[in-house]
């Protein structure tokens, strides 16, 4: 057994009372005890603290126990943190249960739809919220295009954005993100054109006009 291992064993055997540093020096006189202990402290294996007039050494767990026994402030803080942890755990368990129930419910709800329709638009376990949002957005968007379009069918995207902002408080970024998704998903349905003061950037040009083909 090496000197380091013997030192650790000695410190562990002392338990939460700890062992005096001077005792270790005496017992391991032939070794460079201070240097070895410094290394151990650096690695977090051993803790050294003053108790009374002498310096004592502890292993990690025993030092923790020693602090709990001897320092009322530490004990109180520890108990407060533990209580908080228990409370958080309790709530997160409840949340996980609720989410689990929701997942099951959505799965059950989507299942008959899949079986009935049997095609690709359905989601199996838990669908991403964006898909739903996109479909809802599509309906609103189509309606706005129909309402605002000129005789040749083109509408400024800014007009539609203003309407959807007024209705749903849809931000600029969200609106154009959804327009981009819509134009990509339904390439044969929508046509974008350059122009306007705001719009989607394609080929370095602002495309601020749209129409349904």
């Amino acid at each position: 057994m090496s000197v380091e291992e013997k030192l650790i064993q000695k410190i562990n055997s002392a338990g939460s009372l700890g062992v005096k540093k001077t005792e270790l020096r005496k017992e391991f006189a032939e070794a460079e005890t201070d240097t070895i202990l410094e290394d151990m402290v650096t690695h977090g294996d051993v803790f050294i603290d003053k108790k009374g007039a002498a310096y004592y050494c502890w292993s990690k767990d025993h030092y923790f126990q020693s602090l709990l026994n001897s320092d009322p402030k530490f004990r109180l803080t520890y108990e407060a943190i533990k209580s908080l942890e228990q409370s958080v755990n309790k709530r997160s368990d409840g949340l996980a249960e609720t989410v689990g129930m929701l997942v099951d419910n959505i799965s059950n709800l989507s299942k008959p739809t899949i079986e009935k329709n049997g095609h690709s638009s359905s989601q199996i376990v838990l669908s991403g919220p964006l898909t739903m949002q996109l479909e809802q957005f599509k309906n609103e968007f189509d309606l706005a295009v129909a309402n605002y379009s000129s005789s040749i069918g083109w509408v400024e995207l800014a007009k539609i954005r203003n309407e959807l902002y007024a209705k749903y408080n849809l931000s600029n970024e969200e609106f154009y993100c959804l327009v981009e998704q819509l134009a990509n998903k339904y390439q044969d349905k929508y046509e974008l054109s350059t122009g306007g003061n705001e719009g989607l950037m394609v080929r370095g040009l602002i495309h601020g006009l749209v129409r349904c083909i």
Partner: protein
Amino acid sequence: MYPYKLAQNPYPSSPTPTTIDAKIIGGKKHKEAKSAVLSCIGDLLSKITETPTDKDFRLITLIQDVGSGKTHLSLHIRDLQELSDNTVISYVDLSQISPRDMHSLYRSMLGGFTEDYVRNLKESVVYFLRDQAERNVMDAKKIFNYGFVDLITRRSLTYKAEQILKNKIVPNYFAINSVLKEEDLSQTEISILKLLIEGKFRADSYNNVSTLEDIIASISAIASLNLKFLKKLTIFQIDEFDSEKESVDFVKAVINAHLPSTVLMLILTPSSYEEIRNKNSSVFDRLEKANYKIDLAGSNTLEEILDISLEYIRYYDCGNNFTKDDEKDLTAKIKVIYDEFPDFRNIRSMINILYHATENAGKRNAVIIDEEAIDDTIEAVYPGLRIKGSIMGVPLSDFFKIRRNSDDVQMLESDVRDAVRNLVNYAYEIGTVAKPEAANDGKGNGIDLIYDDPNGTKVAVAVVINKDYVKSFKQISNAVKSADYADKLVVLTNTNAYGESNGTSIVNIDRYKMIDLIYFSSKYRNKEMVLDDSQRALMLAKSIKLC
């Protein structure tokens, strides 16, 4: 030699169409638009009598976004053989006129007529005058200075007319004035004809006009003369029409004038149309009431772009070397470009890629436009372009190949399954996970792979890829039931599904992830992994919750 044994690159290289390129027209929408224009012209032709009236005016608007083929269509119509017998066309590109005022606009309208037209009109007028002289109409012979010497030397009036056409003799302009007056021609018409005979047709814009009224009278006169002497309609094509005040006011005057036997074709973008609406409601109202509003809606759809792209090859494929298989192959490649890069969803951009790709393939003597040609083209011409969301940095050429093969879902599922096994094996080789085991127990339990992660957690992996999502749902359910011996189950699927509960993670892998996986797998199998790939592979594994 170019691909498909073509003698030349069929695709134009210029950013805007040229007269030669415009001979080719493809695409259902463009052909429909062409038919609509021809129908308008045909309708007007059927109604015109010898004496044109202000009812014989038509307005056509051609509105579509930049790069969609408006100018191409206009030039194609201008050079149509079937129209050359009954129309004369002046094409004007307003973007080339600066500063813009009524004089420069009128000058460009005169400049838009071809030299052939000017020569034909001059010939018609001179031979008309000769006919008048032969019929001994008063003063007509004086036009040709036809006298006693011509008579005894047997020089005919035709000879004298030809001399005038060759600018070898100067006609008697006073006599021309006198004869044409008898034909009920206006003074403006007579002035234009005199300039024409003098060889200074386009000088009218400098000499005889000072007001907008004069200009409109001159344009109207030209249209009347075209009908009288050439029996042809006049078509003015004004391209790049915009909301600039000078152009808008000029066009308004032209529309209001109801030019006889004339079609005015305005070519503009939806943006310009909107601007005109905001700036000049009076002109906008006139545009709204256009006789024909040519709509190129859908001119940027895949179907249209494909048809146009293929039409160029068909046009130059004299030896019928472009087979159905070649067509299918090229169609698939164009579709990939169209789907993956929104920047190329217009015909001008696509033609540009095809031009460079054809050049590239030609230099390598490739028999088709191959993936390498397209890859090199995009790298050279659009160096900033990347496949969106690719972790492995898949080169475009590999992306094309994998993407094209991914239409076969069974093959795709098998490739992805192999790729996932290879990815976990690779993670094991570099010490990230414990040695994976194959989980196929022959009962079809749906688990493809089992391994221990660095925390000692036993992870089971199931790959579920189907077109039929109901089938996927069942497969996922089976996998969940079968994986009770594992601490964690990762289901990789294309079902648009997400979720994480009771140790099961459903991970949605989209087309890009699958292509990343297959690309990694190919590199791993062929022992082509380099340091950078290693980091990317680990990132890929993390992104699908495998590590």
